């Protein structure tokens, strides 16, 4: 009834980080270690009971860095801090961006062969890549994002052709510039145009209200949003605008090592049921899990799935009681 899934990233095992950072490790050994890591995180998600896992983005360094290192026109300018002591290697666009070849297809094929479950493949959206890069070439961000949309669209079509049937465009930057939402949605729609797969968009850590209702014009099947960090208050916003698409409901705080209780997860789902029917609710963490420890991430996923399963039983019982009640003259 409630499909459980993830947003994308999963903590990288320490042995993997050590192997990758060791100068003596050969390319073949690195590839083999990455393959093992993908198998491991898929099994961990299966162990937690997640219906639609991802490959944990094991092969990706960072959500924009991975793409800017594979799209022509970018050069890296050095590490930039995001919060605390977390950095990413930020690129600058110094020439017209070009598609250099598939970026995620091999990663998807390997993951596909490593699990029987349906898979979600996240891909960073054109608006976010543009917004999180330094611009040393284009007249403005719109021009850059528009070119990037063509590149992301081509990649998504390649993924769909390889068999990926659930693609999520990650656009966390969209919530930061409400004044640009109008063209940002156009750019997103260009990126997903004609892609034959279930399509989701993930937006997080911003003021959702400022994007509504224009953001609802995004031609996707599902919005995967962060709710726990914001105490589920944005569910009211969805109700206000008569939201009818599928909802990726964030019930796990990914920036807090404290593991939620099953009851807290259930309470979040209960609140969502006031807005949407169960079959439209996908139970997710708020965002990628990569900043948590591996143990905490696994524990949080287990609690998330248990909460979803218990809520299914509650909903079924309620519905049976309602059926019985309606049969009483």
């Amino acid at each position, binding site marked *: 009834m409630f499909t459980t899934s993830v947003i994308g990233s999963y903590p990288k095992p320490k042995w993997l980080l050590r192997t990758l950072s060791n100068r003596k490790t050969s390319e073949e050994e690195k590839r083999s270690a990455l393959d093992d890591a993908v198998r491991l995180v898929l099994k961990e998600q299966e162990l937690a009971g997640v219906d639609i896992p991802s490959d944990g983005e094991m092969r990706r360094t960072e959500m924009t860095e991975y793409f800017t290192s594979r799209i022509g026109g970018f050069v890296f*300018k*050095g*590490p*930039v*801090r*995001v*919060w*605390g*002591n977390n*950095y990413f290697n*930020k690129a*600058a666009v110094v020439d017209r961006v070009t598609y250099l070849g598939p970026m995620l297809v091999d990663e998807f094929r390997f993951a596909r062969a490593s699990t029987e479950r349906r898979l979600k493949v996240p891909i960073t959206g054109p608006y976010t890549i543009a*917004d*999180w890069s*330094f*611009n*040393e070439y284009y007249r403005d961000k719109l021009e850059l994002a528009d070119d990037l949309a063509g590149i992301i669209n081509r990649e998504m079509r390649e993924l769909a052709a390889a068999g990926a049937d659930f693609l999520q465009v990650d656009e*966390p*930057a969209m*919530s*930061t*510039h409400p004044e640009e939402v109008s063209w940002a949605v156009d750019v997103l729609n260009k990126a997903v145009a004609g892609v034959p797969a279930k399509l989701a968009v993930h937006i997080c*850590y*911003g003021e959702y209200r400022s994007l509504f209702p224009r953001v609802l014009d995004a031609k996707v099947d599902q919005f995967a949003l962060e709710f726990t*960090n*914001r105490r589920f208050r944005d569910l009211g916003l969805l109700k206000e605008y008569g939201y009818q698409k599928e909802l990726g409901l964030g019930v796990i705080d990914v*920036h807090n090592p404290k593991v939620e209780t099953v009851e807290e997860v259930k309470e979040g789902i209960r609140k969502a049921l006031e807005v949407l029917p169960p079959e439209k609710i996908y139970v997710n963490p708020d965002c990628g899990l990569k900043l948590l420890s591996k143990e905490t991430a696994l524990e949080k996923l287990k609690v998330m799935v248990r909460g979803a399963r218990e809520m299914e039983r509650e909903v079924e019982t309620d519905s049976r009681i309602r059926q019985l009640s309606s049969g009483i003259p």
Partner: protein
Amino acid sequence: MSQQGRRKSYKRLGQFFRLMGAFPPPSYPRPPRLGELLRKKRDARPLHEKLVQELLALQRSSGLSATSDGRLLWDNVVEGSMSLLEGWEKADLVRFFDNNYFFRRPVYSSLKPSLRLGEELRLNPYSNRLLTVIGPASLSYLARGKLTVDWDYARAMAASLRPMDRGYLVVQEPALLEGPTSDLLSELSDALRSMRPPGVKTIMMVYFKPFSLAYEMLLDVAVDGLWLDCVSDPGWLTAIKEKGGRNITVLGLMDSRNTLLEKPSSLAGSLVSGSQTVAGDVFLAPNWGFDILPYPVAKQKTRLLGQALKEAS
């Protein structure tokens, strides 16, 4: 001499005595090697002190008019300012305006001052030192979602700032651009007056949003100067030309959110043009802290400020 002639010669005299300079950003990016030590909870003090001395030497050799220790240990201006106070906790992770850069929202009911600043000032002994804190209106907005003056913060911060006895206090008030009222600005004036340590010049810094059409409102705030983000809104330059400036006008002409290096001649041209329109001191500066630039680029841009100032002079 006619009245018009006298006015012209006063203007020339004013231009002669007026100071034209350049300010460093109030904050610099934390170099990854320092971040790594902090992340591993190892003793970061020796490296921090070395980096601060490097920054101060760079700013002085570039000929800048003030010195900033870069606030390298601050995670961001919100949590950093709060670290000068007692009686608060960190809550959820919130984006700092429109950046891919976050802070933990502070929660508190009663704030108390601390004596931490005295120790921190030791690293930057220069008389022209520049220190920054978040303003009481922006703190209220960022911590509680309300654009009001947080007097609890203003009072506690005023006491914490007491060890500062000279230089420039840059009060960051980006939230003002969300739509201030004259009542709010009047109350903010009182709060900023109360926060100002004796002997220190207070500069209010606004950034990220276009707001130049309401420049006149900001002129009423009781501070010595205004630091304006002329990258996000070039209209500030026109507004200054039309309405005049404060005793200190800081023109944030350098883009602190892009690695593209400005041409010193272009910055110099804008600085000279700006300096001809106001009576007070005029400084060239970045439009915000260098927090989200790679550290080597931040150093390059610092040198560039100095080069532009030389050209303008």
